[in-house]
């Protein structure tokens, strides 16, 4: 099965990620990239139209999990042990939020992952995340 097909099916299999409109645009070798288009139902501050942090954290969690699973030394599924998210600035309303995650170290039992989320302004991250994930055997 080719990479694009795997990517499509990955999100399709996760109801919550699908509900948030996520699209996996790249995956492999411990790296993943997922986009989440702007949606009115995900707004956290009705006055400004800024997306809620909870939706951003779900995006981060999904992307980090995908990166962990795609690592060559990760044989099967994964679960989040912990995840820390830093919110640098509000995402600009109307813009897609894209997250890139890298599994930078993996042991027999734990995958360590870092991620960055940006909107159209790629030089100023919206949020960053670091997390530890289980390596299922």
């Amino acid at each position, binding site marked *: 099965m080719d990479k694009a097909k795997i990517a499509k099916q990955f999100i399709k299999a996760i109801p*919550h990620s699908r509900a948030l409109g996520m699209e996996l645009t790249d995956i492999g070798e411990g790296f993943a990239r997922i986009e989440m288009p702007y949606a009115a139902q995900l707004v956290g501050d009705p006055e400004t139209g800024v997306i809620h942090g909870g939706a951003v954290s779900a995006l981060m969690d999904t992307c980090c999990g995908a990166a962990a699973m795609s690592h060559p030394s990760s044989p099967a599924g994964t679960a989040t042990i912990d995840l*820390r998210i830093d919110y640098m600035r509000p995402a600009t309303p109307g813009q897609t939020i894209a997250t890139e995650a890298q599994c930078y170290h993996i042991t027999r039992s734990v995958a360590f992952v870092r991620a960055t989320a940006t909107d159209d302004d790629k030089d100023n991250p919206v949020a960053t995340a670091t997390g530890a994930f289980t390596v299922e055997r």
Partner: protein
Amino acid sequence: MAYKRPEPVQVIKQRRDAALSALVHGVPYITFMGIEFDRRGDELTAILPYDDKLIGNPLLPALHGGAISGFMEVAAVIGLGWSVLWDEIERGELDADEVVRGHLPRLPKTIDFTIDYLRTGLPRDAYARAKVNRSGRRYASVHVEAWQDNRARIFAQGTGHFLMPRRDD
């Protein structure tokens, strides 16, 4: 000073519940998630009723880690926002009826949020309570615990730091 008879309990309750409801239902993401709040005095319990769209692993099945963290962040922000609002209403600085009419106070902004996943989130309702450990003029630190059937068996905990809305004074 002449003794002022307290208002009937139902009037007070109705006003507080209406203020809380206005605060919660003004946020589209909270409605999207289906999160509700139960109030007993100033204590809030956030409720995440089970929904198929909250699933992250359909094979187990288990709740999505992102749904859990979103739920806990909502519990923290509303818990913190409510504690500030409660004090202002009690001191008479803010009229609860104004809140109900749509004059919503700005909610705190999340600086960072760390979540520990202790157990698999089962496909059933989840509950969370936030404890404001420190609430200053600019920053606040909040701890959240979430559980499902058994209050003593928490399945996730989180700590977050928040930027308090600017006060115009």
